[in-house]
C-alpha cells in the first residue's frame, strides 16, 4: 500500500494547520458587507477590473521548472554565490535558446534550464552530435592527420560517450568542425589545439579532399539513417561502435558534460534539500528513473528532480486502479462534479499512462478494505472541516452533515441538516466536504455523520 509521500510536520502542527481558524464575524457583519458591496456596484457599475488581477498570481520558481510550461518566467531570487561563475561561454552557448538568450545565466541555471526539458534541448544536442559525427567521418577520410600516439587510446573509448548530449559551447562557436574541448588538462588542450591547427592547415592545402570528405559524411548519413538515429538517441548501455565512429576523440567531448554534471552536484550539495529529503526523492524517483532507463535517458543526475513528480504519480496509482476495478460501483468514474474535483489528478505526463498503471482487477479488489479506516476518514474530513465550519459561522447551533463516499473513495453525496439546511451555508458545506477523499474500499458506499459547529 502506497502511503502519501510527503514531509509531515509534527502532529500538533499538522492539526493546527488543518484547523487554523480565523476570528469570525457575526452574521450581521456579512449581511452588511454584502449590502455595502451591492451598493458600491450600483454606484460604480462600469468600473473595469484590470486584467492583471485575473492572471496567475505567482510566477513559477526555478524549482518549479520541472513541471512548468516552457514560457514560464524564471525567478532568480534564490541566486547563490555560485551563480557568479563565468558566464561568457554559457551566454554564447544559449544564444540559440530563445528563453535564455535575453538573460545572463550562470552555468547552474543553464544546466537546470536545459536539463528537465529534454525535448527542447534535444535539437541543440542533435546539432552538436551531427557536427561531431561529420568531424569524425572527415577524420576517417584523412587518418594521417592524427597523431599516431593518440589514435590508439581513442579507439577504445565507448561510442556512448560520443552520443551523450554535448554542450555546444565550443562546437557552436568554432568555424572548424573540431570536437569540443575542456581546459582541465592543459597538455591535452594544447595537443588538441595543435591537432586542430594541423587539421585546418591540412584543409587549406587539400581543399579538394575536404569537400569529398564532407560529401562522404552526408552520403554515409543518407545511406545509414538508422545508424544516425542510433547515435542521436542517448543510451546508458555501451553499444558496439559503428564504423569509424570510435576514432573520434570522445573524451574531450564528454568533459563539458561532466562539468555541467559537476555543477548540478554542487547545486545539490549546497542546495535546498537535506540529506533525508534527497534520499527520499531518490527513492521516489525510482519510478521515473525506471521509465527514463527504458527510454535510454540519462536519469541518474535527474532522479531527485523526478522524485518530486514521482511522489505525485505514486499517489495517483491508487485512484485509477480501483476506479477501473469491476466493483459494485465501477462506473463511478463519471462522478458528480464535486467528486471529480477531488478525484485523482489527471495524468499530467502522457495520456497513455493510466492503462499502464492499472492493476489487474482481481488483485485490486482483493486488496481493498471493506470500508475506509476511521483514521483515513478523520484525515480526509479534518482538512475540510475547518472550511465547512467557516460556512456556518455565526449560526446559532451546530448543523449535521452526512458524507457518503463511493467505493472509489470519492464523495458521492453530502447531505446537510440543521440550521444550515436551505441556506447558502448548505452549498458551502457541500463544496467544502465534497473533496474529502478517502482510499478506495470494497463496500458500495460508506457514510459518516458529522457535526458542523460554528467557529465562534
Amino acid at each position: 500500500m502506497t502511503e502519501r509521500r510527503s514531509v509531515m510536520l509534527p502532529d500538533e502542527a499538522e492539526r493546527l494547520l488543518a484547523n487554523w481558524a480565523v476570528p469570525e464575524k457575526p452574521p450581521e457583519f456579512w449581511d452588511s458587507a454584502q449590502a455595502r458591496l451591492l451598493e458600491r456596484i450600483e454606484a460604480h457599475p462600469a468600473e473595469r477590473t484590470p486584467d492583471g488581477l485575473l492572471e496567475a498570481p505567482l510566477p513559477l520558481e526555478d524549482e518549479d521548472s520541472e513541471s512548468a510550461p516552457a514560457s514560464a518566467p524564471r525567478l532568480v531570487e534564490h541566486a547563490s554565490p555560485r551563480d557568479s561563475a563565468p558566464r561568457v561561454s554559457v551566454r554564447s552557448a544559449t544564444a540559440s535558446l530563445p528563453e535564455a538568450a535575453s538573460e545572463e545565466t550562470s552555468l547552474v541555471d543553464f544546466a537546470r534550464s536545459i536539463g528537465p526539458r529534454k525535448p527542447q534541448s534535444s535539437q541543440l544536442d542533435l546539432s552538436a552530435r551531427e557536427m561531431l559525427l561529420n568531424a569524425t567521418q572527415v577524420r576517417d577520410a584523412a587518418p594521417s592527420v592524427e597523431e599516431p600516439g593518440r589514435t590508439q587510446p581513442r579507439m577504445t573509448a565507448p561510442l556512448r560517450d560520443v552520443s551523450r548530449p554535448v554542450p555546444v559551447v565550443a562546437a557552436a562557436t568554432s568555424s572548424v568542425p573540431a570536437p569540443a574541448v575542456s581546459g582541465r588538462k592543459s597538455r591535452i588542450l594544447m595537443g588538441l589545439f595543435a591537432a586542430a591547427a594541423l587539421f585546418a592547415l591540412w584543409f587549406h592545402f587539400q581543399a579538394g579532399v575536404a569537400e569529398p570528405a564532407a560529401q562522404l559524411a552526408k552520403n554515409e548519413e543518407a545511406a545509414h539513417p538508422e545508424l544516425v538515429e542510433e547515435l542521436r538517441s542517448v543510451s546508458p548501455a555501451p553499444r558496439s561502435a559503428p564504423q569509424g565512429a570510435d576514432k573520434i576523440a570522445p573524451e574531450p567531448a564528454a568533459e563539458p558534460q561532466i562539468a555541467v554534471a559537476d555543477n548540478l552536484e554542487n547545486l545539490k550539495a549546497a542546495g535546498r534539500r537535506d540529506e533525508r529529503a534527497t534520499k527520499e526523492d531518490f527513492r521516489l524517483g525510482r519510478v521515473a528513473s525506471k521509465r527514463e532507463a527504458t527510454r535510454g535517458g540519462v536519469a541518474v543526475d535527474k532522479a531527485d528532480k523526478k522524485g518530486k513528480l514521482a511522489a505525485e504519480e505514486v499517489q495517483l496509482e491508487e485512484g485509477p486502479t480501483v476506479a477501473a476495478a469491476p466493483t459494485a460501483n465501477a462506473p463511478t468514474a463519471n462522478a458528480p462534479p464535486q467528486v471529480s474535483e477531488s478525484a485523482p489528478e489527471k495524468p499530467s505526463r502522457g495520456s497513455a499512462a493510466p492503462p499502464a498503471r492499472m492493476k489487474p482487477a482481481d488483485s485490486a479488489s482483493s486488496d481493498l478494505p471493506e470500508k475506509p479506516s476511521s483514521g483515513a476518514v478523520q484525515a480526509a474530513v479534518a482538512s475540510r472541516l475547518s472550511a465547512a465550519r467557516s460556512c456556518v459561522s455565526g449560526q446559532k447551533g451546530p448543523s449535521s452533515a452526512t458524507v457518503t463516499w463511493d467505493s472509489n473513495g470519492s464523495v458521492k453525496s453530502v447531505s446537510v441538516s440543521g440550521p444550515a439546511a436551505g441556506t447558502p451555508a448548505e452549498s458551502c458545506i457541500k463544496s467544502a466536504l465534497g473533496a474529502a477523499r478517502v482510499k478506495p474500499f470494497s463496500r458500495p458506499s460508506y457514510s459518516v455523520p458529522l457535526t458542523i459547529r460554528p467557529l465562534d
Partner: protein
Amino acid sequence: MQDTTDRELVEAAKGGNKQAFGQIVARHQRRIYRVVVHMLRNEAEAEEVTQECFFRAYGALDRFDGRSEPFTWMYRIAVNLSLNMLRARKPRGHATSLDDPKVEGALVERRPSMADPVAQNADRELALALADGMAQLSETLRVTLILVALDGLSHTEASAVLGCPEGTVAWRVHEARKQLKVFLDAKGHELTGTRGER
C-alpha cells in the same frame, strides 16, 4: 435559488442580475475572507480586500470564461489583491505578535486544551512559531501552503487558482512543509507524535 449552481448564478449576474451576484457573495465571502486573513494577518485589511475582491469580480464577470469554477476564479482575484496589499506594505519584522489574528484564531480553535495553562502556553508557542515560520517562507510557497494546508483546497483547485500544474502545487506544499519542519526544529519544537517523512 439555494440549489442554483455557482455557474448559473454567474451567468445570471452577467445578464445584470445583481441578486444573483449577491448570492455568490453570500456563499463565498467567508471563505474568501478566511484565506485573505491567513495571507494578510490583519483583519481590517482582510475585510477591505474581501470587499474589493467581489467588486473586482463583478467588474470582470464578462471575462469569466467558465474554464474554472467561479470560486477558484474569485480566489485568484483575492490572492492577487492580497499580494498587492502585501507588496504595498512597508517592510516590517516578521516576528509574530500575540494579537495576530492568525495566532488568536489558532487558540480559539484549540479551546478545549485551554483549561491547562501548560498546554495553553505550548499551543501559543507553537502557533507563534508556525506563524513565524510561514512568514519566512517565500511568497510562492506560503501562498500555496495557505491554500492547500490551511484552507483545504485540493491540489486541483489550488492549481486552478495559482495557474500552475498540480505537480508544482504538490512540490510547493512538500517544500513548504519541509522548510517549516526545519524552522520548527531550529526553534526547539521537538513535538511528540512526529510522523516525519514517509
